[in-house]
């Protein structure tokens, strides 16, 4: 790579963007104006909210003689919010004068918005409260002359006092505010009556509150302030890093395409990698600048405005330094993603359409870590973006040691994600179909014509994606319609409906309608060697100890939540009690056939038309994983999907994959039923676990891994032995226009089956 060209391109792009008023506005002007304006608005709005008066109607007679007063004139006695309540009593309300049912009328008036809330005192409320007090006094007097063992309270009849009622409309914000104010006032009035009752009964007030609970906040001011920033800064950082990258990316790629300047640049001596890297560096710089200016503006606004609020101060300097360190990889990641998307867009307008999907994908990764229950652990630190957010939060809250423990994992994942996205962006610049994507007029007629009449031999990329989406959608709705299976028969029905109805049926229909060679599209071809089938079975058996280890690892990283656990245990018990052969048929045989036909058959062969072999395998595996629906299952299924995809590519058929899948699922199914004898050698390799089943000792894992390695080496050589009409697994072995059809293994579609595999 010629870095002189990269520097030239970088300098030009920076100069170009700095002359663009829209970019300057987004990067420099908006942050400077936005936060002070937001701060001022916030203060104004909060002031407005605080001063907002609410109208309250009081129905019934709450003026009780001998009790602490609730009203003073036309106001509540309580201070504070009572000043903000405009009280009107029922006699002053003309519409209540002749009302047969005052409560119903009050209800109507609140519903109509005449009042924000109403308080209804039942007719006998005062009488019953007075009676209660009299009973209480009598009880207190009798207790004074009774033996110490007697229980005076037993004679008190506290029940039967009708409750005053607050009538409000929670669909109305003002009514909600009125409710909160009234609830507080009436609660405090009730407490005063209670205290008065105690005093009149000769008991000290402390009898009702023998002790108070004190809060001992161990945090110092600095940490309390930091915790506020810990919630704000990561989100700001990520949102602005993305926004700051997006607009320059669209202008520098889609804009250049639109203006025709990209073509000129492409035939200059600057290589495409140099162009991509130069643009990426420029976008990154603008992303970083946007974040820095936003943070500075937030800081200054906070200094003048927010720092006056309690519990809100300036963030610690060390934490700010950590934010700056995190800024570079985050900006690199988002800049590369934006660059790749912008390179794909044909115009700036189209490019801007891509912002919302990108935000929708990114936001959950940013916002979810802000939930109190989500903590920095190994599992979460392995999730791109989320790991960074959690790490930053830990650093900002001052948990340095905890953060440092997971910093390597977060760094590795982030760097890996950065490299992948940068590579994707560079590949976009090397792809003619991306750079010179024509604006084709799309019509249903042409599309249907091509779809059915000009059918390709094997599925297109779009057909493969469509098939995956159809499977996902049907699976989703089926999972909503199904509850927990009541018995094994119900479970069997569920598995068959999902596997046949949701996975294999749409796949076969699409293969028949959209391709000229359904057999090849589904991967139902002769494998390179028939011995690949038993070899795949051997591979599954050899990998079984490692698969068990992987499952345990995933469960440790992402434990199943306690709320779901009982359902899983119930299922496991059901499987344990079921006959083994029907169980194997449902969990090993049916999913192996159905899922392989869909994922390694139709979908993988479709992906291979437009992607390189490993990318096609990877995406089909991701889709296979996503179909499982349960995070733990999805991770394992994705790993399994990569291996199954590779087997399909190497052997040129889905049959070895079906065999592998069958053995893999079968072994996991019967694991809980294995009973170890007293064979010493076996005891060294396999150990029983509590609650049934076995686990594998390290020697067994090592032996299995060695055997698996040898088998995979055999598979790796398989493509060389294949005849020329069978597609090889090697990159670019086939022309892209007509890649070899590879069968795919089905993804785990049934949640129950997935649970069993787990």
């Amino acid at each position: 790579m010629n870095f002189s060209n990269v520097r030239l391109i970088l300098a030009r792009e920076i100069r170009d963007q700095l002359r663009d008023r829209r970019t300057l506005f987004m990067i420099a002007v908006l942050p400077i104006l936005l936060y002070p304006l937001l701060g001022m608005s916030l203060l104004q709005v909060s002031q407005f909210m605080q001063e907002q008066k609410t109208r309250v109607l009081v129905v019934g007679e709450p003026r009780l003689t001998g009790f602490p007063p609730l009203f003073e004139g036309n106001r509540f006695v309580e201070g504070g919010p009572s000043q903000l309540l405009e009280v009107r009593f029922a006699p002053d309300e003309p519409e209540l004068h002749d009302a047969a049912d005052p409560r119903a009328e009050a209800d109507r008036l609140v519903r109509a918005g005449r009042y924000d809330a109403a308080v209804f005192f039942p007719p006998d409320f005062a009488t019953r409260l007075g009676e209660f007090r009299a009973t209480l006094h009598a009880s207190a007097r009798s207790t004074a002359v009774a033996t110490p063992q007697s229980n005076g309270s037993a004679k008190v009849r506290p029940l039967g006092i009708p409750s005053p009622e607050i009538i409000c409309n929670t669909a109305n914000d003002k009514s909600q505010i009125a409710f909160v104010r009234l609830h507080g006032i009436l609660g405090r009035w009730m407490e005063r009556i209670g205290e008065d009752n105690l005093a009149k009964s000769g008991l000290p007030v402390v009898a009702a509150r023998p002790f108070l609970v004190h809060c001992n906040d161990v945090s110092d001011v600095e940490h309390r302030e930091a915790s506020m920033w810990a919630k704000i800064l990561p989100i700001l950082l990520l949102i602005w890093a993305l926004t700051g990258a997006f607009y320059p990316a669209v202008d520098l790629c889609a804009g250049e395409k639109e203006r025709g300047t990209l073509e000129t640049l492409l035939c200059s001596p600057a290589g495409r990698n140099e162009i991509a890297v130069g643009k990426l560096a420029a976008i990154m710089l603008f992303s970083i600048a946007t974040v820095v200016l936003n943070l500075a503006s937030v800081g200054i606004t906070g200094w003048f405005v927010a720092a006056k609020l309690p519990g809100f101060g300036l963030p610690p300097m060390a934490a700010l330094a950590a934010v700056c360190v995190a800024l570079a990889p985050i900006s690199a990641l988002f800049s590369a993603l934006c660059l790749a998307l912008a390179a794909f867009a044909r115009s700036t307008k189209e490019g801007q359409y891509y912002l919302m999907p990108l935000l929708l994908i990114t936001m959950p990764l940013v916002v979810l870590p802000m939930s109190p229950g989500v903590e920095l652990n190994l599992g979460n630190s392995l999730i791109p973006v989320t790991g960074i957010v959690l790490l930053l939060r830990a650093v900002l809250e001052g948990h340095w040691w905890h953060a440092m423990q997971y910093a390597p994992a977060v760094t590795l994942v982030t760097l890996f994600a950065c490299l992948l996205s940068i590579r994707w962006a560079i590949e976009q610049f090397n792809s003619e179909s991306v750079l010179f994507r024509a604006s084709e007029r799309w019509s249903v007629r042409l599309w249907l014509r091509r779809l059915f009449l000009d059918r390709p031999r094997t599925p297109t990329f779009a057909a493969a994606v469509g098939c995956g989406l159809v499977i996902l959608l049907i699976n989703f709705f089926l999972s909503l319609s199904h509850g927990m299976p009541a018995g094994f028969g119900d479970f069997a029905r569920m598995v068959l409906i999902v596997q046949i109805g949701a996975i294999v049926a749409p796949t076969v229909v699409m293969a028949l309608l959209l391709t000229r060679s359904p057999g090849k599209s589904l991967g139902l071809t002769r494998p390179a060697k028939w011995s690949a089938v038993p070899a795949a079975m051997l591979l599954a058996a050899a990998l079984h100890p490692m698969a068990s280890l992987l499952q345990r690892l995933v469960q440790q990283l992402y434990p199943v939540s306690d709320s779901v656990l009982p359902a899983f245990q119930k299922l496991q018990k059901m499987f344990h009690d079921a006959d083994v052969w029907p169980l194997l048929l449902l969990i090993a045989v049916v999913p192996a056939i159905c899922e392989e036909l869909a994922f390694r058959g139709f979908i993988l062969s479709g992906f291979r038309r437009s992607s390189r072999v490993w990318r096609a395998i990877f995406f089909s595996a991701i889709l296979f994983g996503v179909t499982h629906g349960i995070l733990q299952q999805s991770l394992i299924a994705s790993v399994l999907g990569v291996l199954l995809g590779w087997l399909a590519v190497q052997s040129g058929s889905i049959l070895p994959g079906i065999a592998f899948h069958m053995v893999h699922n079968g072994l996991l199914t019967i694991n809980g039923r294995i009973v170890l004898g007293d064979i010493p050698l076996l005891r060294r390799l396999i150990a029983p676990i509590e609650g049934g089943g076995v686990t594998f000792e390290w020697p067994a894992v090592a032996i299995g891994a060695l055997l698996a390695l040898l088998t995979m080496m055999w598979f790796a050589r398989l493509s060389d032995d294949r005849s020329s009409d069978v597609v090889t697994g090697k990159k670019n072995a086939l022309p892209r226009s007509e890649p070899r059809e590879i069968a795919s293994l089905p993804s785990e579609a049934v949640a129950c089956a997935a649970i069993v595999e787990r």
Partner: protein
Amino acid sequence: MIQVHELTKSYSDVRRGQFVALDSVSFQARSGQVYGLLGPNGAGKTTALRILSTILRPTGGTALVNGYDVCTQPDQVRRSIGFVSANTAVYDRMTGWEMVEYFGRLHGLPRDLLADRMERLFAQLKMSDVRDRLGAKMSTGMKQKVSIARAVVHDPPVLIFDEATAGLDVLVARALLNTVAELRDQGKCIVFSTHILREAERLCDRIAIIDRGRILAEGTLEQLRDEHHENDLEELFFQLITRHDQECLETAAVGECAE
């Protein structure tokens, strides 16, 4: 200087399915010669020129530019060419001087040499009015001048003009054609695509008439006239294109036509 042999390029799109934009095209262009590619819209001219300038990769055949293969030696090819397209491809937020300097530096010209050459070029093309003017504020004629200056600043032996006169008024178009003629006289090898037959007649030493990705006729203007017994180039062009279109329609049913 340019040798194209059996050059093929196919695409796939929703409307046309698998579409052959160039079907085994072969021609040669020499130094000091303007080679004209004539064809209607969508004939494959731009595709051919994009392949020659290494923007696109061919799906078949070979193309040598200044002795370098467009597939295996794209860097050398790019250093040997200057490319002027129909859309002037001028950066809105750069001045004329900055733009030419940018491309000169991408071509690795030393600063002193570049400044000297740019001064001469700006004087020669009468570009003093665009020197400090931003691209967004230039007229089409000004933009085309900048585009030419940018293409020739590194003094390439091969120049590619892709419908460079499209959208220009008569005066600017005439000036551009004069510039092309001057460049030819300097010994450059020029490929000039157009669908304006008068330009081709006036400027091109050799002409290839191209339609639907195929070269229908090729030679000097005199050779074409003699071969097809038609003195009027426009009539000759019309006959060739109409006949080829008819053949394609007839053979489309059996799938033999390029399209």
